[in-house]
């Protein structure tokens, strides 16, 4: 088990820069997720750590040791690939034993370790089968077993759940986290799925266009996004123009054309440096749609017209017109949603907003 450090990493393919100047620290034993849309450089980073790509500039350290020149087969990493990459001509047991043969594991212990790994992923009886005879979710587990049986210093997961269907994906998410907790291996997880990232990570690294947008705990990244990109990539957010009037230790006073004065607490206005133009970020699920004229205590409200209703049973997604802007609201509902075209009031608690300095 080791920490992973990226120092000033740059990766260029010809004239295209896939990863701009990146610094990253993955602490020992942590579960860190690289989150971003396709082409944001997250997989490139993973492949550089794996040794499948050479960084153009910068250093990669695993356990404090520079590994730029260490070939992949000497890095002692467990990698789970998106398509599992199980060896089709070998049985499940031989797949798992593959990495053990290149380590000084005595022959008589290999079978035992393979069985332990199969037990860990809860597929104790499939050792003699071929990968093609297993379902996608089972293949995924075998790929994981093969990666962890070698007791890697770091576990690298390259979108391992994306090939599974939705229900299975959620099960595997829980399963993967359980196994990681159990063996405690430093894990780097790459995904474009925000719910996977939020559910599993100790830390999320949000990437966009080859740059790190934000690094933080899931709650931090979710509740206090560092940029408009992060706000919109993790769920839906409303980004509203605002003007910061004043900022002090208690918080910041914002003036918004849509909602008037909004006072944000200090921890939600850290990205503002003082008075000046700003953006107010309001998550769709924090914007409450209410009866016309409602004015509950503690909520900042504005009149609105409901333009689109996207009913999803337990929740409903509204697109509402407030002033000259269209805002999104994602609300839990009991019975019937508001009707399309009806007048309503939207409101939010000031502590649920957060502020961004304009880009």
């Amino acid at each position, binding site marked *: 088990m080791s920490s992973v450090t990226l120092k000033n990493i740059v990766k260029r393919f010809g004239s295209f820069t896939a990863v701009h100047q990146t610094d990253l620290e993955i602490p020992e034993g942590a579960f860190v997720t690289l989150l971003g849309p396709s082409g944001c450089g997250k997989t490139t980073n993973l492949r550089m750590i794996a040794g499948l790509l050479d960084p153009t500039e910068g250093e990669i350290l695993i356990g404090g040791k520079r590994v730029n020149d260490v070939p*992949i087969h000497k890095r*002692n990493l467990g990698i789970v690939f998106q398509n599992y990459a199980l060896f089709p001509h070998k049985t499940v047991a031989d797949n798992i034993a593959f990495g053990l043969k290149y380590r000084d594991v005595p022959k008589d212990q290999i079978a035992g370790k393979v069985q332990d790994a199969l037990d860990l992923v809860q597929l104790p009886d499939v050792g003699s089968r071929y990968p093609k005879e297993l379902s996608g979710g089972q293949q995924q587990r075998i790929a994981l077993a093969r990666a962890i049986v070698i007791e890697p210093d770091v576990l690298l997961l390259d979108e391992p759940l994306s090939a599974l269907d939705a229900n299975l994906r959620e099960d595997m998410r829980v399963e993967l986290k359980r196994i990681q907790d159990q063996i405690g291996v430093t894990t780097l997880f790459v995904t474009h799925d925000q719910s996977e990232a939020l559910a599993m990570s100790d830390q999320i690294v949000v990437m966009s266009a080859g740059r790190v947008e934000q690094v933080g705990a899931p709650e931090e990244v979710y509740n206090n996004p560092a940029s408009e990109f992060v706000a919109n990539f993790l769920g839906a957010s409303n980004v509203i123009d605002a003007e910061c009037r004043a900022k002090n230790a208690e918080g910041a006073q914002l003036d918004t054309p849509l909602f008037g004065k909004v006072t944000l607490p200090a921890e939600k206005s850290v990205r503002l440096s003082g008075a000046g133009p700003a953006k107010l970020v309001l998550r769709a699920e924090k914007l409450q749609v209410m009866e016309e004229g409602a004015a509950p205590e503690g909520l900042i409200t504005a009149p609105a017209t409901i333009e689109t209703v996207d009913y999803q049973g337990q929740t409903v997604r509204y697109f509402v017109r407030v002033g000259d802007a269209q805002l999104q609201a994602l609300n839990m509902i009991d019975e019937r949603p508001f009707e399309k075209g009806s007048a309503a009031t939207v409101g939010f608690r000031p502590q649920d907003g957060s502020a961004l300095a304009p880009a």
Partner: protein
Amino acid sequence: MSVEARERRQPWILLSPALTAITLLLFIPLVFIAVYSFWLRTATGADQVGFFLDNWQEALTDRFYRDILLYTLKIAAITTILCAVMGYPAAYFIARSKGNKAILLLLLMLPFWISYIIRTMSWINILGVSGALNTFLLWIGIIDEPLQMLYNQATVVLGLIHFLLPFMVLNVFVSLDGIDETLEDAANSLGATRWQAFLQVTLPLSLPGLAAGGLLCFVLGAGTYITPLVLGGPSDAMFANLVFEAIITQLNWPLGSALSLMLLVVLGLLVMVYNRYLGMAQLMKGLG
């Protein structure tokens, strides 16, 4: 007509052009050949219709035919092994090359645009007494008189490799191209060096292609008569040359028919044994 009935008929409708061609152009002529092989050529040169086993007796007991048959199989085997050794790395290179795969494949096909006979004869211009190689060696002064390089077993094998190598490369390429490259990455990440990963993963997965290419090279090589005719000496005749000799030169169709059927049966048996013991079916099972 019900949907099921239509679906049952469809394969036959789709297969009918090919089946017609195979029946008319391959199967019926083969039956003729089989019938011919029991006729007898008389001293007058006319064929006597009937059921005689003389041709078969001659073909199966004369040591001359047996020796040439074994020699033919030996040459085909040598050629196949050399094609595999030379073709595999080339196929690997093409399969792993990024953007220019199509151009490389086109280059591989290019020789097929020229007649096989012309390609075979081109070696005379290269290796002949006044060929390119001798002229060059004389010119730089390494030799004083032209070397006799043509018309031996080595040039026959050379000509066969020239003819068969593309078949091997294509077959191996197709199977290599279908192998997921992340399998090698996975093997590397588990501690295998690139060479070990190749031996453990890529090579076994490409065996079906290698086997198919090998079979094709062997059968085509064993059945050829052009190459030994053009590039071989008097003692380099292969089995198909005997058939050619019997039918074209001696006009002895009954004997030629028996000989060609004999080659067909031997190659057919070899193919069956090959499939049985190289465990292709087992390998395919693993690949699903």
